């Protein structure tokens, strides 16, 4: 019995390891056709789902026909599983009769969209979250800090889809009146995302600040320092590493957030020229296109998912294992 229980708990623990590896390998194999087709150019190519005509020049024609053949094979394989593809196959064949075309996918727009919304969210949330953390940790009396702390944590518990709906119908109109431009844009998406990560960032920053030993603070107060000076010269330097870790962790959250952004970013595969232009992010591209995608298009979405997974994995590891470990 003892042995069984021990084996059982070891198996569950190993499952975490297996899951993480499994996610990586599954995404990679599903993205493989797109990776083979587009390589690393995928990251810098701004065109999504664009038909390009293959030119029939002597040298290139051979290579191009190969490409088409590979694409056809891929489609045919999937066609066994999914009858919807049949239409597309026919279309592809029709195309070949006249001019050879192929559909290309590039991930630049959603990648840029993801990074920019996250940056806007961070720029908006950072000062307010720091203010809240200072308020909770140092300024407010215990009972007020407790109540406000719970309120802020409740804000974090509200499902993200609610943030999206509220943002689209109530927050975005005000922002677009103030700054001009569309109601669905990089700016409104980023700001709503900022509101969403605000409580999370504030809560973990407060926890970092609370690790400052009381003796240090008391000595500074005894020397006649004001609250501001204690916070600036004692608490911030002491908990700096932890605070940076908290910020990066919040950033990791913002990168992968889907629903709040989906309502507000506009979901168009166009590079934004201004901050008030609509665009798209990786999670939103997946949320809105996965259902209809097939073949290479679906594979390209998996490629995006893989990129997102790797970015957030790196960001979170950096926060957890460099900054937050050091803080302990």
């Amino acid at each position, binding site marked *: *019995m*003892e042995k069984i229980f*021990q084996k*059982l708990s*070891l*198996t*569950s*623990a190993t*499952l*975490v*390891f297996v899951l*993480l590896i*499994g*996610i990586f390998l599954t*995404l990679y*194999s599903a993205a493989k056709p797109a990776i083979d087709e587009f390589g690393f150019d995928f990251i810098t190519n701004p065109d999504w789902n664009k038909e390009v005509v293959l030119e029939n020049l002597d040298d290139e024609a051979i290579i191009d026909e190969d490409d088409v053949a590979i694409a056809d094979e891929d489609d045919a394989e999937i066609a066994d*599983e999914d009858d919807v593809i049949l239409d597309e196959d026919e279309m592809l064949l029709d195309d070949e009769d006249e001019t050879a075309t192929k559909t290309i996918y590039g991930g630049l727009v959603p990648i840029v969209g993801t990074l920019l919304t996250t940056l806007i969210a961070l720029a908006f949330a950072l000062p307010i979250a*720091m*203010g809240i953390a*200072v*308020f909770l940790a140092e*300024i407010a009396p215990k009972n007020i800090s407790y109540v*406000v702390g719970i*309120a*802020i944590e*409740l*804000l974090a*518990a*509200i*499902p*993200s*889809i*609610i943030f*999206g*709906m*509220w943002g*689209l*119908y*109530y927050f975005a109109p005000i922002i677009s009146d103030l700054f001009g431009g569309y109601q669905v844009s990089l700016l409104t998406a980023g700001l709503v995302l900022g509101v969403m990560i605000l409580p999370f960032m504030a809560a973990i920053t407060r926890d970092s600040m609370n690790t400052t030993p009381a003796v240090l603070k008391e000595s500074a107060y005894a020397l006649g320092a*004001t*609250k*501001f*000076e204690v916070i600036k010269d004692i608490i911030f330097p002491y908990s700096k590493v932890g605070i940076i870790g908290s910020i990066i*962790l919040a950033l990791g*959250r913002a*990168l*992968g957030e*889907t*629903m709040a952004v989906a309502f507000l970013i506009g979901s168009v595969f166009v590079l934004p020229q201004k901050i008030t232009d609509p665009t798209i992010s990786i*999670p939103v591209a*997946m949320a809105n296109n*996965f259902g209809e995608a097939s073949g290479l298009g679906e594979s390209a979405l*998996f490629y995006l998912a893989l990129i*997102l*997974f790797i970015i*957030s*994995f790196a960001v*979170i590891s950096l926060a*957890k*294992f460099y900054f937050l470990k050091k803080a302990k």
Partner: protein
Amino acid sequence: MRLLVNKIFLALSILSALIGLAFLGWILATLFLKGLSSFHFSLFLDDLVDGGLRNLIVGQMILAGIASLIGIPLGMTAGIYIQEYGQGRYASLIRDLSDIMMSAPSIVIGAFVYALIVVPTGGTSGWAGAVALAIMMIPVVINTTDSMLSLVPRELREAGIALGASKYKVIIDIVIKAAKVGIMTGILLAFARIIGETAPLLFTSETSNYFSLNLSESFPSLTVSIYDLANEPEESSRDLAWAASFILTVMVLIINLTGRFITRNKK
């Protein structure tokens, strides 16, 4: 001058707290006003196809319930391994990986389950949705179990062993009992988190307009339907989405507050 700077700084900090509270108030006020005005008791009796929400609420509960049935035992036993059995490197590696998984983008988990279950089985299903939610839940339960067990004093374990109890007896009858309240709170918070998830369900369970208990077909989901309804042009669909959001948020907040209440009473 120093005192002035200090005053300004304190004022700014209080202002930030007020801004945070204002957003919470604004969102809750919107939800209550819009939600209550479209709220009607018949929402609980009719299915979506007749303009109600019954099938969606039941469906979401079932998805989160099955996810818990999968996620809680796996998460707890893994947490027990890390804290009680694991030694050195491997246990701390698992702890770190589970920490990372806790923050993994939920839509990526949805894509993973899509490739793993939806494609091979030929279509979206309630099982796929429940598995996606379970994967979201496991690391949270591991984290709670791990940190709550670490608070149990070593002496309790030693006393149990000294009485001749085997290790798993000590874990189940002493350590878990001592950490029960904390673990339950963590599980409630984890449940509150997954019941409001949308992204992992979008292409795993999808949603359905009809009442269903058959987990091997597309399964009604409250959150996915909110997303669909909110994007429809008709005013009536959007009102229904607000009513659904209101019900969802009330559910989430009640579960969340219950969890906090339990811990507070214990203390």
